[in-house]
C-alpha cells in the first residue's frame, strides 16, 4: 500500500528520463501524471486508514523495511517507509499538489521543446520528497532532503541557456548545502548521543538525555540543545528562513509550476516537517525552541517588508512564501506543532494556487513577469482572476478561507505561550499579517485592475488558459476554501472533547482569581487538566488512575462514554488533536500552547482579521483610489524603502563577505601557497639549488686548454709545497694532520679533466 504511494513517481521518472525519446512527449506526460495521480489517490486512502478510521483509540502507524542501506559497526541504516500521522499528512499534501502541478505543466510547458525531461524532473522531485517524509531514520531523511535539493537544482536551471537561471540553481544548491552542513552534524551528534539514528530508538525516551552535556567544538554544551540547533540549521536552509533565505527569490528563475510545487507548497516546508518530526527532542531543548521562534518571527516580518516593494509578480509571492514559512516556524517554536502542520497544509493549497494563477497570468501576458507592465486584464482572464482572489483571501486570512483558520491559531498559540519571545512573535506576526494583506491586494490590483500598461501587441494575445491549466487550479482553490474549516478540529482542535466548557471554566477562573500576570501556560494547562479530571470524575470513580497522563484520562473517558451508551461521535467535527496526531507529535504538558490557544481573549482572536482588512483597505486606497500614494510614501521614507526594496542587502553582504573572499583565498592559496611557497621551497627550490650548484661546478669545465693547464700548474705547485711543508714540520717534530682543504681543490680539476 505505502509502496504504491511512494514508488510510482520514481518509476515514472526512470521511464520518462531514460526512454523519453522512445515514448515521446505525450508518453512522458501521460506516465508521469498517471503515476502521481495514483500516488495521490493511494495517499488519501492511507490517510483514511491511519487517521480517519473509526477506531480512534489505536495508533495505526507502522514501518516497512525495504532493504539494508549502510552498515558499519553499530551504525545501521535501512531503507524503510514509516507511515504515521505526520507522514500521511505530508504525503497527501505532496501528492495532491504534485498531481495538480503535473497536469498544469502539460499546458504551461506546451511550447517548451523539453517537455519530457521537465515531467521527469517533477516526478523525481515528488519521489525524493516522499522519501523524505516517509523515512524512519535520519539518513534516509537526508537522502530525501538532498534529493529534493537536486531536483530543485535541476528545475531552477531548467532553462539552462539562461545564465541567470544557472546562477540561481547553483546558488540554491550551495546555500542549501550550508544548511545541510548543520543537518549532517546534527545527524552525527544524534548518533554519538543515542547510538542510533533510527526514529524509533531516538524517540523512545529522549527525556533520559534531558540533562546530558556533550563536548562540542571544545565546549561543554547541552547535548539536545546543540543537536536541535544543528538540525534547525538544516531547516533554515531548506525552508529559506532568515540568514539562508537568499536562494528562494532567485529560484523564481525556474518555470512557474516548479515555483508552485517546490518553492511554495512542498520542498520549502521540509524544514517545518523536520522540526515537527523531532518534536520529542525539541521539547527537551527549550533554548532551541526559543531560537526557532525568534528566527521564524523575524523571517515573517522581514520577508513581508520586502514583499511589499517588489515588482516581479513571482518574487512577491516568493517573499510571501518565506513570510508564511516564518509563521510556521514560530508556531513550532512555541510548541504548537499541530498549528505549524496545519498552516503548512493550507498554505500548500493557497500558495500553489497563487503561483499557478500567476503562471496563468504570465502565460497570458506572453512571459511578462513585471507587474508594472500589467494591469487591466481582469475581464480578459476572468477565471484566473477569480481564482487568484480566492488564493489572496486565503493568504490574507479572511474567513472562511483556509488561511484564516491556520494563521489565527498560530498567532493565538504565540500569544498563549505567554513568554517574552512568544509575545514578540505574536506582534511580528500581526505586523506581517497586515503587510501580507497589503501586498496580496497590491498584487491583485496592479496585475488585473487599472489601465493596461502592456504593449498593444501583448494585450492582443491575452487569453484565458486552457482547461488543463484551469482544472488543477480549481482543485487547489477547493482546498484553499475548505481545508481550513474541515481539518481545524483534527490538526489544532482541543485535546478535550468538551473543551469549550472547560475553557469557559478556565477563563472564568482566571477572571475571578489571580491577575493576568499569572496566566502562565503551565498554570493554564494545569487547570485544564484539573478541570478535565473533574469532568472525568463524574464517570470515573478511581482517582489513582485519573491522576496519570492526560491522554490516559481521555482514553478512559471516551471508553466510559462508550460503555455508558453515549456514542462517541467519530465524524469530522469530533476530531480532536490527541487522536489525530497520536504519537507522531510529542508535546510536554507544560508546553501545550495549542490547548491554551483556545482560551485566549477575544481581541487576540480578532486582531489578525482586523489588520488583514486594514491591509486590504490600504492597498485599495493606494492602488485604486489614489494611485500616486505609494510613490509618495516611498519617497517620504526613502531609506527604509531602499532597505526593503534591496532585500535588506543580504545578497550584497554575503557576496562581499563569503563569495569574494572564498575566491580570493583560493587564489592566494594557489598562487602563493602552492606555487611560491610549497613548490618554491620544495621541488622547484631544490631544482634551482642543484642547477646553481651544478652551474658553479660546470665553470671548471670551460674547455679552454690554457685554463686546464693553469689549474694543473697551480695544483702541481700546491702539491709540491704541501709535500715540502709536510716534511718540514716532521723535521721539527711537529705532527700535523694534512690540511684537507688544500687537497680538495688540488684534486678537483684533475678529475674533471677526464672525459
Amino acid at each position, binding site marked *: 500500500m505505502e509502496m504504491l504511494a511512494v514508488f510510482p513517481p520514481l518509476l515514472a521518472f526512470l521511464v520518462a528520463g531514460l526512454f523519453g525519446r522512445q515514448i515521446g512527449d505525450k508518453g512522458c506526460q501521460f506516465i508521469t501524471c498517471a503515476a502521481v495521480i495514483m500516488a495521490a489517490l493511494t495517499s488519501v486512502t492511507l490517510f483514511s486508514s491511519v487517521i480517519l478510521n473509526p477506531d480512534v483509540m489505536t495508533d495505526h502507524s507502522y514501518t516497512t523495511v525495504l532493504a539494508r542501506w549502510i552498515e558499519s559497526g553499530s551504525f545501521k541504516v535501512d531503507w524503510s517507509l514509516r507511515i504515521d500521522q505526520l507522514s500521511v499528512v505530508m504525503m497527501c499534501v505532496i501528492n495532491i499538489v504534485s498531481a495538480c502541478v503535473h497536469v498544469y505543466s502539460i499546458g504551461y510547458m506546451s511550447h517548451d521543446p523539453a517537455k519530457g525531461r521537465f515531467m521527469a524532473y517533477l516526478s523525481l522531485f515528488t519521489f525524493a520528497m516522499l522519501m523524505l517524509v516517509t523515512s524512519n531514520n535520519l539518513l534516509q531523511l537526508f537522502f530525501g532532503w538532498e534529493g529534493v535539493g537536486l531536483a530543485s537544482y535541476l528545475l531552477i536551471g531548467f532553462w539552462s541557456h539562461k545564465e541567470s537561471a544557472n546562477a540561481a540553481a547553483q546558488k540554491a544548491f550551495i546555500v542549501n548545502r550550508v544548511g545541510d552542513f548543520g543537518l549532517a*552534524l546534527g545527524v552525527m551528534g544524534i548518533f554519538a548521543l543515542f547510538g542510533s539514528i533510527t526514529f524509533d530508538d531516538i524517540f523512545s525516551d529522549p527525556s533520559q538525555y534531558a540533562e546530558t552535556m556533550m563536548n562540542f567544538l571544545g565546549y561543554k554544551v547541552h547535548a539536545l540543545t546543540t543537536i536541535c540547533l544543528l538540525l534547525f540549521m538544516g531547516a533554515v536552509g531548506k525552508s529559506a528562513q532568515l540568514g539562508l533565505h537568499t536562494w528562494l527569490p532567485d529560484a523564481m528563475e525556474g518555470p512557474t509550476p516548479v515555483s508552485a510545487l517546490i518553492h511554495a507548497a512542498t520542498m520549502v516546508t521540509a524544514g517545518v516537517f523536520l522540526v515537527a518530526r523531532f518534536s520529542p527532542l525539541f521539547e527537551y531543548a527549550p533554548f532551541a525552541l526559543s531560537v526557532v521562534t525568534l528566527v521564524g518571527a523575524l523571517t515573517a516580518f522581514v520577508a513581508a517588508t520586502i514583499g511589499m516593494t517588489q515588482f516581479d509578480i513571482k518574487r512577491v509571492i516568493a517573499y510571501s512564501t518565506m513570510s508564511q514559512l516564518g509563521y510556521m516556524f514560530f508556531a513550532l517554536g512555541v510548541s504548537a506543532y499541530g498549528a505549524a502542520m496545519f498552516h503548512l497544509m493550507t498554505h500548500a493549497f493557497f500558495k500553489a494556487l497563487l503561483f499557478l494563477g500567476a503562471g496563468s497570468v504570465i502565460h497570458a501576458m506572453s512571459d511578462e513577469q513585471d507587474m508594472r507592465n500589467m494591469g487591466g486584464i481582469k475581464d480578459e482572464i476572468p477565471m484566473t482572476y477569480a481564482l487568484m482572489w480566492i488564493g489572496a483571501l486565503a493568504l490574507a486570512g479572511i474567513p472562511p478561507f483556509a488561511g484564516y483558520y491556520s494563521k489565527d491559531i498560530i498567532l493565538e498559540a504565540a500569544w498563549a505561550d505567554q513568554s517574552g519571545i512568544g509575545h514578540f512573535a505574536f506582534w511580528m506576526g500581526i505586523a506581517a499579517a497586515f503587510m501580507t494583506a497589503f501586498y496580496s491586494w497590491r498584487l491583485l490590483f496592479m496585475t488585473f485592475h487599472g489601465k493596461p500598461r502592456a504593449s498593444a501587441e501583448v494585450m492582443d494575445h491575452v487569453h484565458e488558459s486552457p482547461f488543463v491549466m484551469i482544472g488543477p487550479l480549481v482543485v487547489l482553490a477547493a482546498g484553499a476554501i475548505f481545508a481550513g474549516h474541515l481539518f481545524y478540529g483534527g490538526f489544532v482542535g482541543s485535546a478535550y472533547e468538551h473543551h469549550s466548557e472547560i475553557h469557559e471554566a478556565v477563563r472564568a477562573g482566571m477572571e475571578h482569581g489571580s491577575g493576568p500576570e499569572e496566566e502562565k501556560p503551565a498554570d493554564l494547562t494545569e487547570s485544564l487538566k484539573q478541570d478535565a479530571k473533574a469532568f472525568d470524575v463524574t464517570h470515573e470513580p478511581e482517582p489513582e488512575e485519573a491522576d496519570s497522563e492526560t491522554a490516559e484520562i481521555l482514553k478512559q473517558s471516551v471508553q466510559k462514554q462508550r460503555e455508558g451508551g453515549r456514542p462517541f461521535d467519530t465524524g469530522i467535527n469530533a476530531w480532536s488533536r490527541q487522536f489525530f496526531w497520536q504519537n507522531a507529535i510529542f508535546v510536554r504538558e507544560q508546553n501545550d500552547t495549542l490547548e491554551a490557544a483556545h482560551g485566549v481573549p477575544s481581541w487576540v482572536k480578532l486582531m489578525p482579521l482586523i489588520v488583514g482588512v486594514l491591509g486590504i483597505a490600504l492597498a485599495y486606497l493606494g492602488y485604486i483610489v489614489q494611485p500616486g500614494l505609494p510613490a509618495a510614501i516611498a519617497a517620504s521614507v526613502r531609506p527604509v524603502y531602499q532597505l526593503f526594496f534591496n532585500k535588506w542587502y543580504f545578497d550584497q553582504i554575503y557576496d562581499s563577505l563569503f563569495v569574494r573572499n572564498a575566491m580570493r583565498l583560493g587564489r592566494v592559496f594557489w598562487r602563493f601557497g602552492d606555487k611560491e611557497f610549497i613548490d618554491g621551497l620544495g621541488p622547484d627550490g631544490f631544482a634551482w639549488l642543484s642547477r646553481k650548484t651544478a652551474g658553479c661546478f660546470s665553470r671548471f669545465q670551460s674547455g679552454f686548454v690554457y685554463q686546464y693547464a693553469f689549474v694543473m700548474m697551480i695544483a702541481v705547485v700546491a702539491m709540491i709545497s704541501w709535500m715540502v711543508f709536510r716534511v718540514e714540520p716532521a723535521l721539527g717534530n711537529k705532527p700535523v694532520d694534512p690540511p684537507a682543504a688544500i687537497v680538495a681543490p688540488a684534486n678537483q680539476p684533475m678529475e674533471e679533466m677526464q672525459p
Partner: protein
Amino acid sequence: MMPPILSIMIILPLVCACMITLVRGETGDEPIVEKNVKHIALFGSLFVLAFALFMIANFDKSSADFQFVEKFSWFTLAGLNYHLGVDGISVYFILLSALLTPVCILASWNSVHMRIREYMIAFLVLESLMIGTFSALDTVLFYVFFEGVLIPMFLIIGVWGGPRRIYASFKFFLFTLLGSVLMLIALLALYVKTGTTDIPTLMHATTDLEFQRWIWLAFFASFAVKMPMWPVHTWLPDAHVEAPTAGSVILAGVLLKMGGYGFLRFSLPILPLASMYFAPLVLTLSVIAIIYTSLVALVQEDMKKLIAYSSVAHMGFVTLGIFSFTQQGIDGAIFQMLSHGIISAALFLCVGVVYDRLHTREISRYGGLVKNMPNYATVFMVFMLGSVGLPGTTGFVGEFLTLVGTFQASTTFTALAATGLVLGAAYMLLLYRKVVFGPQVNQDAAEMQDLSRMEKIILIPLAVAVIYYGIFPAAITDKITPSTQELVDHYRLSHQPLSFNEASLDGLRDHKQKEAEGS
C-alpha cells in the same frame, strides 16, 4: 584446493606484456600490429578482471583473516618469503585495479597512436604491480611492488604526456622517491628490531613508543606523498594535467589509494602507539587539505587541475576517517577510497571525452554542451553528483561514514571537515555549470559529437556502479567490516578503550598525559 589466484593475477599481465613484444609485422602492417597489441592488452586485462571477480565471489565475508594465502620461501638466508594474501581491507582495491586497467586500455583505444606497443606494456606492468602491492604480505615484497609502480607511471606521464610532461614526471618521481627512501629505512629498522619481514607477524609484534614514532614518521613520509596530503600534494595537479587521460584515470583511481592502504596495513596495526600519538597531526593536515584544496579548486581554469585538487580534498576525508580509529571512520575511509577510485577516474574520462574533441582543457572554451551532448551531460552529472557526495551515490556513503567516525573522536575536526560539503558542491557545480550549461559561446564546442559507442561502454557501467553501490553499499561493506572490526579491536587493545567523552581531542591529550605519567 584453490588455484594461486593472486599470483595468476600478478603474472598474467606480465605474460601479456611479453606477448605484446612478440607481435611483429612488415612495414605497412602497422594498423594490424596496433590492433593486435590493443586486443592482447584488452583481453589480458579482462581476464584479470574475471579472476578478480571470481576472487570476490569466493571471498569469505565472515572471516577477518587473510584469504587466498600463498606463502613460500624466497630468500631463506634473510627469512624473506613470497607471501601473498587478501583480507577485507585489500580485496576491493585489487578489484578496483583490475577494473580500471581495461577501462584505461579502452579509453586509449582511439586516442593514443604513438608507441602503442610500449604504452600497453606500461599499463599491463602497472596492473601487475598494483595488484602485487595490495596483496603482498611481506614487507620487502610490498616495497618492491610499491616502488615499482613508480616506473611505468613515470614513463606514462613522461612519454605520452602533455607539453610540460618532463617537469611533471620528474616532480612526481622526486616527491614519491623522497618518501620511499625513508620507508625503506623504516622497513629495514623494523626488520632489525623484530627479525621478521612478515606483515601478519609484524602486526602482533610489540615495540615501544619511541621506536614507533620514528618508524611511523618514515612511513608517513611515503604514504602522505602518495595520498597526497597537504602540503606534499603539489605534484598531483601537475602530474594529472600532463598525464594522458588513461594515466590520470589510473593515477587518481588506484595510485592515490596506496597511501591510504599503507596507513591501514602498516601504521595502524604495526605502530598503534605512534598512530595515536600523531593522530592530531594527521587530523590537522587532513582538515587543512579539505579546506585549502577546495578553495584552490574553486579558482582553477583547467578542468583536470580542478579535479586533481578535488582529489586531494577527498583524500583528506580518507585520512580523517582512518585516524579517527573508529569502525565507521575506517569503513568510511575504505569506501571513500573505492568510491573516489571510480568517480574521479570517471571524471577524468569525462574530461578526456571533450579533450579528444577540442584538444583543450580550459573550462572557458566550453559551454552549453547539454544542447549538443545530452548523453554526455547526463553521465557527467552522475559523476559530478557523486563527487559532491549526494546521498544515493557512493560518494555520500564514504564521506558521511568518515565524518560519523570522526565526530566520535573530535567534533571540532568534524565541523571543519564538513565545510568540505559546501565547498565541494561549490567547485563541482561551478565546473559543471561552465562546461555543460550556459549559452553556447564557442562554435567548435557547440559542434562536438555526443558520446560514441566506445565512450558509452566505458562510462555507463561506471555511472551505474556509482548509483547502485550508493543505494546498496552493504554489498561491499559486508566484506570489509570483519577486517576493519578486527583492526579497530586490535588497535583498541593497544590502548585503553575510548569512551565517547574521552574521545574528543582533549580526551586524546588527557590520555597521553596519563600515559606519560604512568610510564
